[in-house]
């Protein structure tokens, strides 16, 4: 028998998020029909930079695309088997394999917009994980050769940022713009770049502000829903539509939910967070947790894959303030963009797990958590980097941890029954009883 402690209601802006996402995949597929340009790259690539090529430039970011494929189990398996026949290892990033498989099969995950996989005009990528630049190197090979430019952003943790490290990135960005002009035969528009950078500031700020509201009990958002919302920032963080949606629709709505005590999980009695990408084909795990009145308030991953954070005057962790600077030229825009991105929490653990452990423990305390679920994700070496050390540190800080192994994009490496059994045992260890059968 369910115990309803709090009122709950559907998100009003849910439909808008869905529409924006669909439009994104449609626009990429139809870009050439509109005389525009399309490019492919990672969710962390500096998408504000190609924005300077014009307002008819559309992109496809690889990770959300790989996750979309993963959500469609049949297509995912088809993609994975296709790429394995080309000699690529099964333990490589599963998003990447899903993406490559789409190229080989020439199947787009959104067949209502295109039966065939839309070939990008160029690749524009960042590099912090071993797979990033190599992803598009291989993709270019599979597509028969597509111009590719990648920017190395792995210059060490933000707290140790130096002028020369920043210059290295900014220098690559300037080189990249020259390359874009040459590759597309278009003149570059700095005003569009500046506008995109300012949009990105808003996107990253407001997404973090939305996540911060989840410190409230009851949590106004649950992580399963957050996946459908944060994704917009991973599709095109520098777009006006993403920034406007977060600032003008989602943030006010979640704030209102907090004010009215609206819960994501109406019987909330236990709060956890997770880590890394979930096994996309098995999001039902989150619904299972709700049977215990357990809400996952998010994770460092959902908070800060796109959201940026900073220390606030009262000692808490909150959204990084939008820089109050006037950007007047290309170099200022690029420097601001590089500096902004380097503070991304999800980029810090690439240098040391202690940096991630500190942030996770901070979330556990400030979001008032009872425990932590760590997804030892075989599909992503970048975000699983140091996860075993994170587990030890979080436990040492006094938070119970349940690790479970799986794969975000390859269902062959996820055992649902076993994971559910582990959840039962974990909930029992936290003293939780099932509220709903």
């Amino acid at each position, binding site marked *: 028998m369910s115990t309803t402690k709090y009122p709950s209601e559907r998100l009003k802006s849910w439909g808008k998020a869905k529409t924006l996402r669909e439009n994104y995949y449609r626009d990429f597929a139809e870009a050439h029909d509109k005389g525009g340009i399309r490019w492919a790259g990672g969710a962390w690539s500096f998408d504000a930079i190609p924005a300077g090529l014009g307002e008819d430039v559309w992109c496809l970011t690889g990770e959300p695309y790989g996750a979309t494929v993963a959500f469609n189990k049949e297509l995912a398996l088809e993609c994975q088997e296709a790429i394995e026949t080309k000699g690529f290892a099964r333990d490589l990033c599963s998003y990447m394999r899903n993406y490559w498989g789409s190229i080989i099969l020439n199947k787009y995950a959104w067949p209502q917009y295109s039966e065939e996989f839309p070939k990008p005009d160029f690749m524009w990528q960042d590099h912090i994980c071993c797979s990033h630049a190599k992803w598009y190197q291989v993709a270019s090979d599979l597509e028969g050769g597509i111009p590719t430019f990648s920017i190395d952003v792995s210059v060490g943790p933000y707290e140790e940022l130096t002028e020369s*490290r920043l210059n290295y990135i900014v220098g690559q960005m300037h080189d990249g713009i020259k390359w874009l002009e040459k590759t597309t035969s278009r003149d570059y528009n700095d005003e569009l770049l500046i506008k995109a950078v300012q949009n990105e500031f808003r996107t990253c700020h407001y997404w973090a502000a939305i996540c911060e509201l989840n410190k409230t009990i009851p949590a106004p958002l649950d992580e399963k829903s957050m996946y459908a919302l944060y994704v917009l920032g991973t599709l095109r963080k520098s777009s006006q539509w993403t920034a406007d949606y977060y600032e003008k629709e989602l943030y006010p709505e979640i704030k209102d939910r907090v004010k009215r005590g609206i819960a994501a999980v109406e019987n909330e009695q236990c709060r956890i967070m997770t880590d890394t990408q979930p096994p996309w084909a098995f999001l039902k795990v989150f619904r299972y947790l709700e049977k215990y009145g357990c809400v996952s308030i998010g994770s460092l991953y959902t908070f800060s894959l796109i959201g940026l954070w900073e220390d606030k005057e009262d000692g808490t962790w909150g959204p990084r303030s939008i820089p109050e600077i006037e950007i007047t030229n290309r170099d200022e825009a690029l420097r601001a963009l590089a500096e902004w991105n380097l503070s991304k929490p999800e980029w810090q653990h690439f240098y040391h797990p202690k940096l991630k452990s500190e942030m996770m423990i901070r979330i556990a305390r400030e979001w008032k958590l009872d425990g932590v679920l760590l997804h030892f994700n075989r599909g992503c070496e970048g975000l699983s980097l140091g996860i075993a050390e994170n587990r030890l540190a979080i436990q040492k800080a006094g938070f119970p941890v349940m690790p479970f192994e799986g794969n975000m994009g390859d269902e062959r490496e996820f055992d649902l029954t076993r994971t559910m059994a582990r959840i039962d045992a974990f909930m029992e260890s936290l003293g939780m009883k099932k509220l709903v059968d």
Partner: protein
Amino acid sequence: MVTVQMEEKGIFDQFKDWYTNRHEYAKAWKEKGGKVMGYFCTYVPEEILYAANILPVRILGSHEPQDVTEPHIFAMFCPFCRDCLAQGLKGRYDYLDGIMIAQSCLHIRQTYTSWDLHIPTDYSYYLPHPMHVQSPQATPYLREELIQFKKSVEDWIDKPITNYDLKRGIEIMNANRRLMNQVYELRKKRNPPVTGLEAMYMVVSSQMTDKHEHNRELESLLQKLSTRDIGDPGERLMIIGSEDDDTEFLAMVEDLGATFVTDDHCTGTRYFQEEVNPSEDLLNAIAERYVKRVPCPSKDWPKRTRLDHIIRMSKEYDVQGAILIQQKFCDPHELDTPAIKEELEKNGIATLFLEFDVTVPIGQFKTRVEAFLEIMREEDLF
């Protein structure tokens, strides 16, 4: 390959001894009063360490099953990085004064960070290192990082590193590279006087001994090699892949009658092929060398420059077959292997792909290598 003719003393024994007894060697060296730095990747600029009279010792695994790293490194990361950490957790490198890494792949980075967390050392340094080595921005950036690193070492040893010291560090490293290149040059001969196993002992031992001593041994070796004849090499093979000091595997393959005549490994040519080209700005010269060296696949983008390099080497060494071997789960190599395999085969070079783990399944590998050699031999018949 035929058995090496009886020599009064195996001319590679010293290298093998250094490799086998690396810890005893480093401890004895340290007793003379120097500091020993454990390092995790060949992108570490040893020139600066030699300039500071510090002994750089590459941390490698021991190829034994272990159960100590499970709590620290997720099992999907490569066995090499876990094997290396196991050595630290077991206290086998307890003589190290410091540890450092130069940024390369994520896997070995975890070894460094877990070591940093759990194994106390006096000094620990993470050297950010450009991954986009094909960018014109890479050398100036690395130069600045080397300035910071040099300063950090100076603070640690409480002594300035002068330009004279740097020149000395560059020269000792360059001499080592030059001498090993000369040995490799001999492997191009119709009857190479060096086996792949011997070459491996030579190169890997250079990563863990004082290069002054190593250079003297190399000079002596080169004199002896000029008259050495070890007979028909059999099939001329190249070995390509990730970190590899699996001597047992090389010995097994060469016992089957083939010879490794060259390699593309960071325990082989990738370590020593290029010298520092000294210029007025010595740190810039060092930076340039590490940016322009044959890259680890993790840094080989957007162009895959290793393809041309490997094909060029295969021609220079008259390679007939290539064994592509990599540490299990090594993403950077996994991302290159299909392209390399295709390119080699396009150039008429037979390939065999194998995956290493901490221990080598020698029986299974032997069967596969025998089959590979059989196929090559049958092709020779027809």
